[in-house]
């Protein structure tokens, strides 16, 4: 199976739940954003007790209050979870829930 390189970036407090703030990883080609969520759950999340602050139960969506960006563009302006990821993309998870 061919893979593509992408960067997955966490901010706004979401970085406390994963291995590192920004990570270069290989994901399967033709992955959608929805596939990336599962990839994050299975490979990057370290704080399993608070994973619900990042993803919903079956990792089909992000937790409410988390914004997802692809190359700094809100995925709501693309095809949401069906957006196909391309090689070199930066996928960002921004938590809006931390701090005030």
């Amino acid at each position, binding site marked *: 199976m061919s893979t593509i390189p992408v960067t997955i970036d966490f901010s706004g407090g979401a970085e406390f739940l994963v291995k590192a703030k920004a990570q270069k990883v290989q994901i399967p080609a033709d992955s959608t954003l929805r596939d990336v969520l599962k990839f994050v759950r299975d490979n990057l999340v370290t704080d399993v007790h608070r994973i619900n602050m990042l993803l919903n139960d079956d990792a089909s969506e992000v937790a409410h209050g988390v914004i997802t960006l692809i190359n700094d*563009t809100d995925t709501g302006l693309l095809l949401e979870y069906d957006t196909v990821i391309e090689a070199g993309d930066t996928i960002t998870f*921004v938590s*809006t829930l931390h701090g005030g």
Partner: protein
Amino acid sequence: MEKRRGPPPCQSGSGCSNPAKIRKAKDGAQLCGPCFSRNFEDDVHEAIVNNKLFKRGERVAIGASGGKDSTVLAYVMKTLNDRHDYGLDLQLLSIDEGIKGYRDDSLLAVEKNRVEYGLPLTILSYRDLYGWTMDDIVAKIGKKNNCTFCGVFRRQALDRGAFKIGATKLVTGHNADDMAETLLMNVLRGDIARLERCTNIVTGEEGDLPRAKPLKYCFERDIVMYARTNQLEYFYTECIYAPNAYRGYARKYVRDLEKVHPRAILDLIRSGEKVSVKKEVEMPTLKICERCGYMTSQKLCKACLLIEGLNTGNTDLGVRKSKKSKKVTVEADELNKEGGCGSGGGGGGCGCAGAEDAAENEETRQRLKDLQF
């Protein structure tokens, strides 16, 4: 494979031809970064102008915690003051609760704002004002009523700080999400007095320093995206003493509502604005605290009562012991469950917006209780 379809063009209507990057949570507008920033700032400007929040020449204290809301507030206030020539003298005001690993770090973020925005910064500490840090208090009373202490202390500390620097107004970073949650909590606990004023854009009565909330109509998501777009650094660690608060549930509920109906937050605020309750009880007249001179409806102000309790080991929240002490204790328990700041539960953040709510709420309860007993 076919190339991914790009985002739609920016809809700002100002002839901008950038691709849109941000979908504004408040109204769904699809905007590029610069147009989103401008749009966000215009919203705040409109709230300021429509509500006549400030007078020219006024010195305004910005309550700064280093968190996202107050960081954005300080930046937007400075931007608008320059752009629209409000003629305000803006100053940063921070409170150091004395919480190691939390407030000391977040104060570094505020210090950065001071340098970057060129605004003077005053820091008041619980230790100096009250002789107790939150670390001391938690060591003494445990992690139970800590947020009640913290809320009462913070409220007074901000007032004192604003007075000290000669400010005639205090602005805080409360946002639309905070307000919708607070409203809901006040409904759930039947706190009518608080319900009536919790959505006011300016609060403070009877000699209280007026407090304004210029971000009242700004959504949390938009505040975060604004900070990101303008590369504002803020601090987002939770307070280590955060309770699993009631607010966490209210927050989740509001977020769920918002998901099915994005206008839910604004609708909640609008409902709050429409509530007006017949005055059935008269508020007691305010006196001056015999110990510290702060205004109070009792002999001693709330903070002095709490300090007295800490110093004498009688930590029942400083609530006056009376014949009905049983009732008083219940009330204290209740407060502990309900009160507290935005921290904890559901991962809510502490800019301690909520702690302030707890304090106000308690003050209200205290006042009402004084009338009953």
